[in-house]
């Protein structure tokens, strides 16, 4: 029995901590990912994103003076973004509910709380491969459908979003 083959996936890792970047890169290499680009702030990450056109972005939130949310917004909405639909994992120590909602409402695909482990990162990568959500533009929001597939299918209340 074999598992997911990540060898052809290109990943961009943005984190201001070089130690965390190194660890995530090392984990990814262990999973078989051969192409990992690193950046230490949102501006450098967007440049790398344009140059490398990665298949997946993993970004920290707090990268003073920039923010991972800036990067997410730019990837999703900048006319010069090469792939506004790229899956984005927000890897952060911010785990308060309001922050999770803020990240989701900026267009993050999923959230991975620090401390990160090899197992938790592997699980998130697999979830991203399996994530077949459509993207939605509504009001100011553009990003993966924020409703989980099963729950939204079951929901028939008066506030169900018109699609």
């Amino acid at each position, binding site marked *: *029995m*074999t*598992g*997911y*083959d*990540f*060898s*052809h*996936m290109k990943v961009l890792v943005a984190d*201001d*901590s070089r*130690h*965390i970047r190194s*660890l995530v890169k*090392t*984990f*990814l*290499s*262990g*999973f*078989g990912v051969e192409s990992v680009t690193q950046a230490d702030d949102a501006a450098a990450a967007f440049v790398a994103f344009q140059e490398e056109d990665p*298949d*997946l972005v993993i970004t*920290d939130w*707090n990268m*003073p003076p920039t923010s991972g949310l800036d990067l997410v917004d730019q990837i999703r*909405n900048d*006319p010069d973004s*090469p*792939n*506004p*639909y790229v*899956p984005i994992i927000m890897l*952060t*120590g*911010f785990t308060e509910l309001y922050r999770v909602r803020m990240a989701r409402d900026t267009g993050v695909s999923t959230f991975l709380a*620090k*401390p*990160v*482990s*090899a*197992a938790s*990162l*592997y699980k998130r990568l*697999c979830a*991203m*491969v399996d994530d*077949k959500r*459509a*993207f*939605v*533009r*509504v*009001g*100011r929001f*553009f990003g993966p*459908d924020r409703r989980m597939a099963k729950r939204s299918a079951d929901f028939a209340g008066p506030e169900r*979003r*018109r*699609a």
Partner: protein
Amino acid sequence: MADKTGKDGQNRPLRNSADKSGDDSAAPAKARTMHPPRHLSDRVPKSGGPTPESAILAALNSAEELIEGYQGWAVDDLEDLWRAFQDAADKKAGPADIRQMFDIAHEIRGQGGTFGFPLITAISDSLCKYLDQRKEMAARAGEVVRVHILAMKAVFRQELKGDQGALGRELPKLLAHLRDRADMGGG
């Protein structure tokens, strides 16, 4: 609102005019659904790679050296935090000083457990909770910060790796009690 096909042929989603003006106060916006032109699963076959167990084991083996080296450089981060604390304690610390301490503590929070020291994450998490949104630091608040930093130094000095059982379970409660008492006292 209309999608525009970009020069690379993608169905590129543009903001509509309401987005640009910031006027979204009208009736609930109608959602427009779009499907990504390419998907991660196109690049990642579900078979052909190592099993999950062997992939995770390979990752852990590769990271062993990095994880072993954590304590060496984490002590430098802790010294940065201590210096920021002392600078703040020497003057009437304002939001920028507190934010600097928060940023360092936040980094330590993310790294501790990641590199095998969950007690460091527990203590720095408590410190982040205390500093988050705080506007000023009175003497009692300074004492709370000092206790947190000294606790982290003790964890490193005694090399308390792992969750440490009962200590790991009780520590967050003790620190929460410390924070609550300081705030009740006007710190």
